[in-house]
């Protein structure tokens, strides 16, 4: 009987010394400030991770630029509702809005990650879909629409993905209640 052998296996490279426990604190995993500035948008570094702050209009172009620079994998696309925390820290030139779309990209070639944050006002939470750049964003954008109500134009099938099709409301918004059922013997409804 033949054993199940992979046809190709890659050995790990020699270990660098002084490994730290904090992830992404290693210098080689983050692009430098100079590289990040090359995209022409405000940049911040959050716990060592580079973040590009893009506005709604320049979103498609910056993502396309990142993809051309080797960020060929989309890791995550999600949204945050800052209704309850309007005074967050943002770099100069970036005006905070209610919604923020956060896209995490990875470069399999350069072994780097980058994050893109887009501010979206409540009345205009619309962005072009990344489906034709990264097909893997299809389900992620559907989830962002379902949970937060952000609309992606050009998406092939922007329908609810987690909640039933006829659900009303966007559950992860801060003005949507958790939906706790009162439990006997628990005095305070809010805290646990």
């Amino acid at each position, binding site marked *: 009987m033949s054993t199940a052998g992979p046809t190709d296996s890659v050995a790990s490279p020699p270990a660098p010394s002084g490994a730290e426990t904090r992830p992404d604190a290693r210098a080689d995993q983050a692009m430098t400030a100079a590289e990040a500035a090359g995209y022409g948008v405000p940049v911040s570094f959050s716990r060592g991770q580079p973040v590009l702050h893009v506005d709604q209009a320049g979103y498609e172009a910056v993502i396309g630029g990142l993809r051309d620079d080797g960020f060929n994998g989309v890791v995550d696309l999600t949204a945050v509702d800052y209704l309850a925390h309007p005074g967050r820290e943002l770099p100069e030139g970036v005006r905070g809005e209610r919604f923020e779309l956060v896209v995490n990209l990875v470069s399999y070639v350069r072994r780097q990650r980058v994050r893109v944050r887009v501010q979206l006002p409540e009345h205009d939470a619309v962005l072009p879909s990344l489906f034709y750049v990264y097909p893997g964003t299809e389900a992620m954008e559907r989830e962002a629409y379902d949970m937060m109500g952000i609309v992606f134009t050009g998406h092939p099938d922007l329908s609810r993905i987690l909640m*039933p099709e006829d659900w009303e409301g966007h559950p992860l918004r801060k003005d*949507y*209640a*958790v939906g*706790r*059922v009162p*439990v006997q013997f628990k005095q305070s409804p809010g805290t646990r």
Partner: protein
Amino acid sequence: MGFEDLNHNFITAPLEELVKWSRKNSVWPATFGLACCAIEMMATGAAHFDISRFGMEVFRASPRQADLMVVAGRVSQKMAPVLRQVYDQMMEPKWVISMGVCASTGGMFNNYAIVQGVDQVVPVDVYAPGCPPGPETLLHAILTLHSKISTGEMHSRRRDSGGGARLMLPHPGGAGYEDAHVEIRTPH
């Protein structure tokens, strides 16, 4: 008079007892594993804990062939109608074990997405607490169910009340669905 000559070649019992005995020893579960509890249910079916000693290792895929529905895991709003449909497809006599705290009461997820206890949707016979309940707990719940079957307690209750929680739900899409109300009757 006539039976002394037969030399212990027969067992006699009331028919009802025989029926209850055979029902209890071959309860066939329907696969309704939803979340983490399903893994513990699978572990109960595996060799270490072996549900087969109770005649229950045949997890039937089709609810028509199953007697027992072990609701193993959290039931979301989207899944509740499916749960009810599968329950309705089972033939009487049928039993439900609510496995785990999420199925029994909603568990740690007291929010918009989880039905706070499957007894809102189907009538439950035995509740097995735990998060997840270990295989020993599930087996205890199963044995409790067996003892209830063998005393006939549940069956007589069902017979009196006409079949459980009496949840009336009109079919979605049917007439009067929008202004339907849910009717719940307790057994007594």
